[in-house]
């Protein structure tokens, strides 16, 4: 008898349990702790679905970086506990919402139970893409991201830039051009500094490895970039580094480098290989790795800037 069903049931109930804790927790801190734990648990479910690439992205972006975003926001709101004793919703509203949520969940559940059989699949086309235009890539997901659906990936990079612009533009007018507020206001604890000094270089090395190996094994530009971003945030939280001024030239170049290189390569494909985003077969792998290297740079810069928030007026201490 196989143990797998038991393991899956334990995992699923853990995920649901932590999700319920996150929703029902009394204060913000507990909810955020629950959310970080929840993200880690989801990574397991993804491994059980044979999706290590997604597991790493979920752990890095969904749990790690989003967790830091929420924590930083909570700190800035001065809201360890919920600020105002907000009006609590009445019992009738609670019941009604509960019924609505249950309905939506069961409808979705019914859809899942009734998914068509045999299931539709784009895997053959993706396999063809991995063989043809994305030649030399052993990881089918990287082949899909960089070749089969490369247009989506490029637009997704542009979404990141737009998000950075959006975040910057809610800052106060007179702060424009300044640096975002530091991720930690006070002096750092010594163990924090030690950990950042030890972990950041190793982490950067691992991030680059994850990016490099992503051509053939789980990993890739998103995961590598997110880990690099996490390491930059670690140094900022230990106050070894400060967020850069938003009008810094290098920062803006790094932000647009990924999509720009991607777009130029796509256009060049139109000239050289006959269609937009087509790569010449022989050079496909080096070209894709070249584009991905700039994507890593852009992601590694964009995520921490999104967490750091809009430029704020300098508070010299």
């Amino acid at each position, binding site marked *: 008898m196989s143990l797998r069903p038991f393991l899956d049931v334990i995992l699923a109930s853990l995920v649901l349990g932590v999700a319920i804790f996150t929703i029902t927790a009394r204060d913000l801190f507990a909810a955020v702790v629950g959310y970080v734990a929840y993200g880690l648990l989801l990574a397991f479910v993804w491994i059980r679905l044979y999706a290590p690439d997604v597991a790493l992205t979920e752990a890095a972006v969904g749990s790690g970086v989003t967790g830091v975003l929420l924590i930083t926001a909570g700190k800035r709101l001065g809201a360890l506990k919920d600020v105002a004793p907000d009006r609590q919703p009445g019992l009738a509203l609670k019941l009604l919402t509960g019924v609505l949520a249950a309905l939506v969940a069961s409808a979705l559940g019914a859809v899942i139970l009734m998914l068509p059989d045999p299931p539709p699949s784009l895997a053959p086309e993706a396999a063809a893409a991995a063989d043809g235009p994305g030649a030399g890539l052993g990881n089918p997901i990287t082949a899909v991201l960089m070749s089969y659906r490369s247009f989506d990936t490029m637009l997704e990079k542009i979404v990141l830039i737009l998000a950075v612009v959006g975040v910057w533009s809610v800052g106060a007018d007179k702060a424009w051009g300044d640096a975002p507020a530091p991720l930690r206001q006070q002096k750092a*604890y010594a*163990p*924090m500094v030690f*950990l950042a000094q*030890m972990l950041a270089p*190793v982490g950067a090395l691992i991030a680059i490895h994850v990016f490099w190996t992503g051509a053939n094994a789980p990993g890739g530009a998103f995961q590598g970039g997110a880990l690099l971003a996490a390491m930059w945030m670690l140094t900022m939280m230990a106050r070894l580094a400060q967020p850069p001024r938003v009008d810094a030239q290098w920062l803006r170049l790094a932000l647009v480098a990924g999509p720009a290189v991607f777009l130029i390569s796509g256009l060049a494909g139109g000239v050289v290989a006959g269609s937009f985003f087509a790569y010449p077969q022989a050079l496909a792998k080096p070209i894709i790795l070249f584009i991905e290297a700039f994507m890593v740079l852009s992601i590694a810069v964009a995520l921490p800037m999104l967490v750091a928030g809009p430029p704020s007026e300098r508070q010299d201490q």
Partner: protein
Amino acid sequence: MITLLDLFSIAAIGVGTFFFFAGTVGLLRFPDSLTRLHALSKADNVGLGLVALGLIPRADSALSALKLIVIWALVMLSGAATSQLIGRALRRGRK
């Protein structure tokens, strides 16, 4: 067919699993936060270490085996530092 290496893996992973359980029992039974922190660090350092050690003979390549050791080292490093931070937060009166 169970080889000697398999036996080594089973022994190491079994003891590692035991340490995770010991850590949990400590978390449940110890009286205050600092002693619970002590129990937690056993699960961290010894439990994960033995599991990683047991998996090394089953690794595909030398690089994978090296990565297992690095994982353990990273967890010990961050575990030591964060235990310090948690201990400090406790000492300064946060509960």
